[in-house]
């Protein structure tokens, strides 16, 4: 049972209120009609299954009904941050402790949101 900070409701809510929607940042090819079968197949069916940091799309289904992203460690289940659609994650596989400070400062607010919900 996760405890998830909804970046729109601006508070921690129980997992029961949310639906997971799979891997985040899956971009639909901009011109599907000229996209190859293989590229379209990748978009439809292929997903990462990393051990460690993973970005996931969730929706606050019983709540504000907004979609947002979660950066989660698939080993410890720790949620490192939650962020709105259109925002960039601060914690990534390349920067598991957070992106370098310059970038981080701009995004610090987003991170603070999940504070206190460490696995």
């Amino acid at each position, binding site marked *: 049972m996760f405890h998830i900070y909804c970046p*729109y*409701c601006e*508070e921690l809510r*129980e997992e029961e*209120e949310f639906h997971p929607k799979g891997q985040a940042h899956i971009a639909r090819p901009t011109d599907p009609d000229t996209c190859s079968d293989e590229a379209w197949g990748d978009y439809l069916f292929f997903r990462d299954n990393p051990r460690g940091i993973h970005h996931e799309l969730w929706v606050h289904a*019983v*709540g*504000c009904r*907004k979609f947002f992203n979660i950066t989660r460690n698939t080993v410890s289940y720790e949620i490192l941050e939650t962020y709105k659609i259109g925002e960039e994650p601060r914690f990534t596989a390349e920067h598991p402790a957070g992106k370098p400070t310059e970038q981080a400062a701009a995004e610090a607010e987003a991170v603070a949101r999940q504070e206190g919900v460490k696995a």
Partner: protein
Amino acid sequence: MSDHTLTCANVYDARPATEVPAESPLAWSYQNTGRPSVSEKSRVVLRERAMLGHLILRGGAIVLDDAVRQVLGLQLPGRPNALSHDESGERSIQWLSPDEWLLIVPGGEEFELEQRLRDALGDARDTAVKNYAIVNVGGGQTLVELEGECVRELLMKSTPYDVHPDAFPVGKGVTTVFAKSNLILRRPTEDRWELVLRRSFADYLYRWLLDAGAEYAIGVEA
């Protein structure tokens, strides 16, 4: 064809002009499950506020705020999960999401209110309208009030949301899980809690409340 269908949005008064028997979502429950009477032992009292006007407002906060102030004299709550009332306490507006609010007003006011809001928001006949939506949802939900010393414990049996006064002060409202369904939970005053139930789930939730409330001798005001 009625005139309304020529406009951008179809708006009309869903209430009959003549006297027609109407039934709240709990009508069947009262008949089938009954209404335990309120007694001195009742540490929870349930009261339905049936047939109120319920409107959903969708749009940008700034645009809607102007219209709501102008029409209702109420400020649009901008903070997440905020609930505010007018001075009479009879009209309320609640934040549901960054672009969604719930307006509850005395039954019968909702149609005129919708029209006035639409007028204030820009002419609905203008195709270059601002982006907003107003939807009458009054037939689909009902409001139930709970009062009494054991309300908080009853709520703790039912919802994973934290109902401790530190976490749930007066003037808050949230959409959350309740038993195996969901509802809107609000706290308009120190002693009173409100539940906004969806019509189709109302009977299940009513039976849940009576069952969970039995040990507090829950009573239902007719």
